[in-house]
């Protein structure tokens, strides 16, 4: 036979598309700790893993933490003595402030699957979380008027205390505060209306 044995569609059929769009994403496992020693003491991860994720979160911290042009505004949101100078500067050379990191969230590896308490692999050295994990490892903060709750840099509350949690990955994607340019492709689209052949 010179033709395909089957030619099935899964995404292009409207019902499937709706399911895909509407069904939502599943919750994933993660863990929250204040520091690596607390993480090791919980005995759910190796000490090396606890430390590596902590370093990854710390590296991400100055990039993703909310930024303020004066310390008072920062402390209004995060409490007296809870803010520090960010490594960034304003274009005129002024200081920038950000809240201190109060804890970190560890993503759980996809390929280990299963319940919280599973093994964690080495995370990426820095940046948006361990490769392969749906929940990116990242720093957490606490606001002035709600000291019990850990929040992400974009103010999403994730946990009321330390230990395993489950949440949807899209809620906690770290937004690195870098300059994004868009529209750099497609400029000839207006002039020529067909691109396939």
């Amino acid at each position: 036979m010179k033709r395909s044995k089957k030619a099935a569609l899964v995404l292009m059929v409207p019902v499937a598309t709706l399911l895909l769009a509407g069904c939502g994403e599943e919750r994933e496992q993660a863990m929250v700790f204040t520091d690596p020693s607390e993480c090791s003491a919980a005995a759910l991860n190796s000490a090396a893993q606890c430390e590596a994720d902590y370093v990854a979160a710390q590296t991400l911290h100055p990039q993703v933490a909310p930024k303020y042009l004066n310390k008072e505004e920062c402390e209004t949101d995060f409490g007296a003595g809870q803010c520090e100078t960010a490594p960034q500067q304003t274009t005129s050379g002024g200081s920038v402030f950000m809240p201190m990191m109060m804890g970190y969230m560890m993503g759980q590896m996809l390929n280990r699957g299963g319940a919280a308490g599973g093994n964690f692999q080495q995370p990426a050295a820095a940046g948006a979380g361990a490769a392969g994990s749906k929940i990116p490892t990242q720093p957490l903060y606490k606001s002035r008027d709600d000291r019990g709750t850990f929040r992400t840099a974009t103010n999403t509350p994730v946990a009321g205390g330390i230990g395993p949690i489950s949440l949807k990955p899209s809620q906690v994607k770290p937004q690195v505060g870098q300059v994004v340019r868009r529209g750099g492709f497609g400029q000839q689209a207006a002039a020529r209306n067909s691109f396939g052949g």
Partner: protein
Amino acid sequence: MKRISVAERANWRAYAEEVGFNFHTFDGEPYWDETAYYQFSLQQIEEDLEAPTEELHQMTMDMVGDITRSEEMLTQLNIPRDFWSYIWNSWNKGEPHLYGRFDLVYDGTGPAKLLELNYDTPTSLFETGFFQWVWLEDQIKNGVLPERADQFNSLHDKIEQAFAQLKLPQPFYFTSVRDNIEDRGTVNYLMDMAAQAGVDVRYIALEDIGEVGEQFVDLDNQAIKGLFKLYPWEFMVQEDFARTITAANTQMLEPAWKMLLSNKGILSLLWNRYPNHPNLLPAFFETATSEPLGAGWVRKPLFSREGANVDLITSSGEKISAPGPYTDGGYVRQALHALPKYRDEYRNADTYAMLGSWVVGDSAAGICIREDESLITKDTSRFLPHIILD
């Protein structure tokens, strides 16, 4: 090879729309046309189309390395100098390719002749791999065609296999120009097959691709590590993000070395390397000293799609031209080998047929047929299904 009129399936338009084939009719004119089909013998398919397609593919692939090392050929092909080493690297790293299509003239006898290569952004994929496949299954089920009727069309199987084997970065992104429904249809079909092969697929409109530092990012600013782009390389290398392409470590499909093969100049380079090959037509780069276009010759822009800006003069001296926006590059000239003419009984008119022959990875993967009332096949040319029956 015969053209045979046949009744249309009663509900095909509704079915087409249900499966996302929204461009079956374009500006009120039919694009998908099942008022007739073409019938081939198995021998015609295997000896005249399948084997020559694989041979042409191999000949073409054998030239890529030489072109990447030749300043003369890269210049003839109008490849921007900033991209020479990027292309060389893309070839030498062995960056994988997915698919391509040869356009051939064939009338049932004698060697098929290569008109051109669509090796970067070939479309009409869904019509070939899915819709004409379903058409045959339906017509067999309806008793219109015999059980033993077959089709040269393993496109769907082969592309799905390719996606399963390519080891693409995950998630893998697909992009096309936002408002082009035909291109979006092609990309949706590719995403569908990739998803079935286990790829984590994401769509992003071409205009939404972002750049942070030296990395392409999606709308959530997440890195795009792998990208299928239904947008010509020759445009990408001229646009604002061109510099980012060479700096970013995004794996592209088709890879950059395909830029050398989607260029009509390859027709001249092929003829120069394999003169008088039975499946090739004489072809030469047009230069400042070229004679005016003579009878029996075709003039094609190096970069052009869907027949745009093609001029030809028939052996009897009649000039036929297709308008278009591709007037800003060089040209090649190719000996005219006229498309075979058939009688369209449904429209009571003459029609010319061109044959597209697909390659997935390095294997021939099926054919598609486009018909036009003129000798130049265009984006408006109708798509007709085919069968194999001895």
